[in-house]
């Protein structure tokens, strides 16, 4: 799929662009403006914020190299308006609370796709991209104080931001940051519960999703399921956690990830999560013979370092899977 097409397709599939083409321009302008405003509100340093508050700088009768000599005027300020304030409402205090998050984000961005010049290295090109991604992730963390930033979110953002930045339409490419933010939020809202530790054991948490993967495997290939679950005790928690939470971004090379995401986002009959589980199941089925002949150690090693395979074949297997285990059971009893 051409670079320009993919970006637009993903925007449509994620619901960022409305179905009616006439409304695209309006939506884009509005959303991009919203993003710029958010950045202004939440990502500006407290220094700049205080500068704005003061407005047309009434203090600026104090150029340091002016001729008027004498004591500099002191202005009283509130308990919250200074950098060392510990007050919860202080913009300074809030700013520093996020430095730890910002540092984690920076560390993770340094490690994102080290083999790709787009993301990695010292060029101003890659630095600009990391800056943009940093803004997106930091903004997300600030807007979602419960989840904040979790390691791996950078990996989920990367394909989106890459695809939008490499859009052949210049206008779109220039606004990749704003568009990526919105689409990242949409994509993540689907799987955000997986990132929340407190929800791990709940019906919407990661463990529940992992057991659905087991069920899906059982429904489609009981032999393999039995071999993994019972004979070799290779449970999904050991290998599929990362597959699911990071939407397979760690298991394949970058080009393959984009191809997989094309299918993931465009599946007409099921939700993204369901399609994801089907692909995970297909990943197991495609390695069936190797898995059947492997023990715990061998299988785990294999699944945690998924080998190169033909992606089109993988996706075809996924599409052909029976999705509802109960239909399978129904046909048996007939």
């Amino acid at each position, binding site marked *: 799929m051409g670079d320009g097409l993919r970006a637009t397709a993903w925007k449509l599939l994620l619901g960022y662009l409305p179905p009616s083409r006439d409304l695209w321009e309006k939506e884009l302008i509005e959303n991009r403006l919203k993003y710029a405003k958010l950045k202004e509100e939440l990502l500006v*340093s*407290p*220094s*700049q914020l*205080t*500068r704005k508050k*003061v407005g047309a*700088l009434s*203090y*600026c009768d*104090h*150029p*340091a*190299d*002016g*001729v*008027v*000599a*004498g*004591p*500099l*005027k*002191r*202005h*009283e*300020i509130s*308990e919250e*308006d*200074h*950098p*060392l*304030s*510990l007050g919860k409402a202080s913009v300074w205090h809030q700013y*520093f609370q996020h*430095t730890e998050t910002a540092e984690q984000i920076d560390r993770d961005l340094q490690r994102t796709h080290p083999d790709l010049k787009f993301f990695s290295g010292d060029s101003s090109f890659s630095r600009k991209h990391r800056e943009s991604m940093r803004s997106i992730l930091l903004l997300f963390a600030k807007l979602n104080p419960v989840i904040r930033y979790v390691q791996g979110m950078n990996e989920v953002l990367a394909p989106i931001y890459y695809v939008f930045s490499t859009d052949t339409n210049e206008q779109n490419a220039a606004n990749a940051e704003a568009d990526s933010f919105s689409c990242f939020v949409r994509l993540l809202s689907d799987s955000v519960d997986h990132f929340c530790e407190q929800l791990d054991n709940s019906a919407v948490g990661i463990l529940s999703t992992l057991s659905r993967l087991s069920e899906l495997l059982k429904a489609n290939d009981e032999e393999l399921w039995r071999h993994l679950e019972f004979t070799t005790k290779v449970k999904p928690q050991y290998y599929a956690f990362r597959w699911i939470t990071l939407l397979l971004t760690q298991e394949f090379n970058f080009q393959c990830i984009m191809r997989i995401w094309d299918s993931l986002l465009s599946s007409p009959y099921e939700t993204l999560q369901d399609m994801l589980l089907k692909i995970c199941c297909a990943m197991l089925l495609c390695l069936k013979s190797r898995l059947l002949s492997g023990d715990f150690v061998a299988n785990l090693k294999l699944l945690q370092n998924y080998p190169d395979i033909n992606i089109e074949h993988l996706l075809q297997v996924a599409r052909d899977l029976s999705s509802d285990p109960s239909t399978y059971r129904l046909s048996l009893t007939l």
Partner: protein
Amino acid sequence: MVLVLALGDLHIPHRAPDLPAKFKSMLVPGKIQHIICTGNLCIKEVHDYLKTLCPDLHIARGEYDEETRYPETKTLTIGQFKLGLCHGHQVIPWGDLDSLAMLQRQLDVDILVTGHTHQFTAYKHEGGVVINPGSASGAFSSITYDVNPSFVLMDIDGLRVVVYVYELIDGEVKVDKIDFKKTTAAHSAH
């Protein structure tokens, strides 16, 4: 946005046991990028404490400092500003603006930070700005009566500096601010 802590004349342990608790609770690591200290710490423990707040620590020698190897004066560039540091006991008359202005011109800096008088002051003259952060511990001084503990935190942002003055008055921390800017960028005469 670069935060620079300026403080000095602590005279620990001879004239004061420690920084006031209310100051210590605010001075936490991770917020400050540079510390410039006017001197008279006086002991290594104070040096080590300041280092925990921020690894980039600059100290000028006060006449009572145990460490004899601190320099008499120091200059450094932070962003668009050149800063100079000197304890001030060498500049006579003590605290005299004209004499300090001369030192400032000699050091060729935009902001001169000195101490010794244990009294916070911030002056502007045609050569730049002179700031005295006072005594962070409120140590007594032969020059100044009723010393209120004080220190300064500068927010250097482009061509603008916001000086936050922290004073402990009657047990409460009072914060003022002073705003000034340069009209021209620093020439890089290295």
